[in-house]
């Protein structure tokens, strides 16, 4: 089991640790509901150092990235980041990721921890044609997500950069918490604003300590993976392995907005055809109409027939009702459509809704 550089810190804070993607990770500290609330209304910090980071450099870096990713990376200027996904050759998704343009010919790809090896092999396979320089920085880099409406104000004293001037999906490389050359990125997986900070493992304890010192007056708290999941699900953000995987099309998953057909990429011809013909199923958001909690793997039922599967589900701490994502036939994907979720022996009514569940 791998550990992040902050493992001892989490244990000292009394975190409940669980195995996740090969790492021992904090799933909760004081409790998922309280942590969720902290991020929605204040500021909280996640250690998500298990995430993978690849550096891709050279004259052909962009061409390689354009080939392997579905979004149009040519739109990126230095200092901008982009959400994207890597389609596979058979209609599914290798991984979803964020691409940062760090310098003219230098890109940072941030991928899911569980997929680091698979992604590396996939990209390497296509890089034979492009010959870009590829480095896997995952083992040496840490990532802190500082999230919540008070994040900007609470963290401003730690950097000479004007944090409020960093727009969503923009970043700067600069000083933070006494460390130089830190990536301060206005991204996150919570919908409540804030930053993600990339630094070296040897630096992260200092960053963590200073972040908590600066955030003390704002009630800053450590947040575990359990709240990370409830927060992202309230926004309807896809989780790889749940809502998207090697078999789900990005178009079915509602990722058409990051699938750009003005360029050639892996499986783009087949996906373009799928777009033209229309998808047969779609990932939808639904909320329970009775007190019940949908869970991954539960059947979605209509007219006593199983029509789909729940891919993510939870009790929403902000809305205090059961919410979920799941695939249904396209003719049932319209908001307002009544469906049912099979929960143990009961068939519980639910309704397809628009995202996000939680309006910030």
């Amino acid at each position, binding site marked *: 089991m791998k550990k992040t550089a902050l493992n001892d810190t989490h244990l000292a804070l009394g975190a409940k640790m669980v195995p996740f993607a090969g790492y021992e990770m904090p799933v909760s500290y004081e409790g*998922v509901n309280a942590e969720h609330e902290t991020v929605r209304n204040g500021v909280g910090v996640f250690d998500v150092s298990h995430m993978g980071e690849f550096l891709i450099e050279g004259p052909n870096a962009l061409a390689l990235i354009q080939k392997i990713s579905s979004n149009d990376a040519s739109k990126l200027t230095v200092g901008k980041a982009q959400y994207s996904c890597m389609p596979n050759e058979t209609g599914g998704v290798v991984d979803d990721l964020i691409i940062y343009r760090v310098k003219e010919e230098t890109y940072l790809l941030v991928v899911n921890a569980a997929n680091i090896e698979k992604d590396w092999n996939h990209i390497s396979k296509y890089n034979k044609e492009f010959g870009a320089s590829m480095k896997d920085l995952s083992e040496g880099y840490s990532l802190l997500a500082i999230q919540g409406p008070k994040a900007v104000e609470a963290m401003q004293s730690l950097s000479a950069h004007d944090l409020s001037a960093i727009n969503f999906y923009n970043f700067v490389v600069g000083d933070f918490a006494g460390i130089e050359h830190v990536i301060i990125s206005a991204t996150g997986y919570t919908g409540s604003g804030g930053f993600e900070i990339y630094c070296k493992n040897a630096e992260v304890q200092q960053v963590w300590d200073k972040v908590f010192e600066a955030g003390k007056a704002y009630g800053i708290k450590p947040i575990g993976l*359990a709240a990370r999941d409830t927060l992202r699900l309230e926004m309807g953000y896809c989780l790889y392995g749940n809502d998207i995987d090697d078999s789900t099309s990005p178009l079915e998953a509602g990722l058409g907005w990051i699938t750009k057909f003005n360029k050639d990429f892996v499986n783009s011809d087949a996906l373009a055809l799928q777009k033209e013909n229309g998808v047969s199923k779609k990932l939808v958001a639904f909320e329970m109409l009775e007190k019940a*909690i949908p869970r991954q793997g539960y059947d979605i039922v209509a007219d006593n027939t199983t029509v789909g599967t729940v891919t993510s589900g939870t009790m929403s*701490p902000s809305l205090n009702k059961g919410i979920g994502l799941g695939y249904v036939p396209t003719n049932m994907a319209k908001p307002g459509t009544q469906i049912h979720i099979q929960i143990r022996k009961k068939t519980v009514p639910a309704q397809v809704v628009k995202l996000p569940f939680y309006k910030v």
Partner: protein
Amino acid sequence: MNIPSELKYTKDHEWVKIDGEVATVGITDFAQGELGDIVYVEVETLDETLDKDEVFGTVEAVKTVSDLFLPLSGEIIEFNESLEDEPEKVNSDPYGEGWMIKIKIANQEEVASLLSDADYKEVVGA
């Protein structure tokens, strides 16, 4: 971790308080801690007579759902309905206000099969 000596336990992390022919059942402090914030306790077996180890309900935390197993054969004569509105009592007071059901014990001989507090401490490595 709180493991009161006056209660009996099961390896499924339930506690049992024997009071003549009635047994009160809940989940242990260890169990609530492992589950995290409990958001729903569902018991739809009220007035039913079930065998020991049958599922009498489910407890849902934010992240997980777990079956509840009947520690003793008998009739489920009462459900703690206050948990419908305040399931968090299971976290805050697992041995008190967080109790779940009362059973009319069908077979007193089964009581001997329950674990003592010392046995349960071994189960959870306390």
